[in-house]
């Protein structure tokens, strides 16, 4: 469903990706943990086709239409209402936004409010709705829990779980081991553009993964 082969990319003297290869099958979630500047966001951008890697190739089954992106920034227009934003992004994918999506994210009461009038947590929920508006099969998640309160984080976990149950795949990158581990079927640690660890989670809890991460990154 998602394949990366020998990805290499440099920004000047800095190596953002250094021979990264992996595959993610339907139903799998790969959590990539790494410190700031490890190349996590570059990896996601290469997978999404936003950056052409200097070497190697990335392939997502279904192309751009299959990808949903949740990142640090919500990719929304502050002057437009929640509903107008979703309608706009849906129109680019030739679909109509479903009211069900708003309900699942607890946005019913905010649908006709401008995004700029919403709190940070609500904006992030709208960003999640935007990413899921076209029912993507592959989710690329860049620190998706940033700014979310406990309820919204739980909703996001549930939605991601639903996507995986329906045969979707996802790659989640974060520096926070605690928030990503439970969702993951596979875990990778990234440092200076390289995967220094890549293995199935195999029942490991967040405390154990965090310990291994500290050892691998140190």
């Amino acid at each position, binding site marked *: 469903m998602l394949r990366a082969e020998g990805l290499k990319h440099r920004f000047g003297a800095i190596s953002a990706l250094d021979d990264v290869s992996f595959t993610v099958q339907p139903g799998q979630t790969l959590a990539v943990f790494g410190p700031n500047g490890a190349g996590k966001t570059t990896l996601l951008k290469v997978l999404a086709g*936003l950056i052409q890697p200097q070497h190697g190739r990335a392939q997502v089954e279904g*192309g751009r*239409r299959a990808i949903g*992106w949740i990142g*640090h*920034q919500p990719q929304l227009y*502050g002057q437009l209402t929640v509903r107008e934003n979703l309608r706009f*992004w849906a129109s680019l*994918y030739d679909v109509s936004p479903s009211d069900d999506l708003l309900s699942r994210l607890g946005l019913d009461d905010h649908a006709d409010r401008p995004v700029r009038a919403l709190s940070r947590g609500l904006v992030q929920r709208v960003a999640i709705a935007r990413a899921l508006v076209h029912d993507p099969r592959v989710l690329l998640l860049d620190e998706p829990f940033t700014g979310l309160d406990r309820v919204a984080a739980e909703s996001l976990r549930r939605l991601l779980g639903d996507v995986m149950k329906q045969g979707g795949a996802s790659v989640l990158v974060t520096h926070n081991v605690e928030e990503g581990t439970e969702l993951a079927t596979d875990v990778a640690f990234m440092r200076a553009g390289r995967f220094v660890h890549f293995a199935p989670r195999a029942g490991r809890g967040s405390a154990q993964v965090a310990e291994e991460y500290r050892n691998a990154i140190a």
Partner: protein
Amino acid sequence: MRSPDLLRHAWAIASKDLLVELRSRTAILSVAVFVVLVLVVFNFGRDPTAVSNIDLAPSILWVTFTFAAILALNRAFQLELENQALEGLLLAPVDRGSIYLGKLIANLVFVATIECLGVPLVALFFNVPIIPHLGPLVATIALATVGFVAIGTLFSAMTVRTRFAELLLPVLLLPFMILPLSWAALATGRLLAGRPLSEITGWLNMLAVYDLVFVILAVLLFPATVNE
């Protein structure tokens, strides 16, 4: 990508931009104030015994439109930087050309609105006859506007992620505006002087060719300007 999809996506992007502008009204109001201010200053600053109104009005009209358009073009892609919406657009399964065309349509509507304000004000302040020549005058303004807005939209995308976007845009754009602006100013002068239409058809043809060349070039070059 099929042309109906290209145009549908372009229209979706243009209508979104116009709706955002309608809600905020910040850019249109600041540009409208600028146009009124410039025309008022020119009106009171000129010496009508030195240069006749008919000779002065075309230059003032086009100088005003040029700077108003630059102000408008500067904001075209700034909107997409807010919350990194540009990445969302690039990630969507739409042709890069439709993003460009959407921005071009929105910019044209924006600049045309300003021109609808500017032309009557020039007629009022400079006492020049526009009603008898309205058709050819609108054609001249439309042809010149499409040309410099087409190239301006491309440069706006090119410069928006640089540190000196607001400085770079006019520096890059003004050399490309010299030809269409001089043709448009010459054609406008002849029109307002009541010269026959045959005297301006050459300039209108050149403006049409300029539009065709630069719209096609901009659509082809746009993907290279937005890729990381």
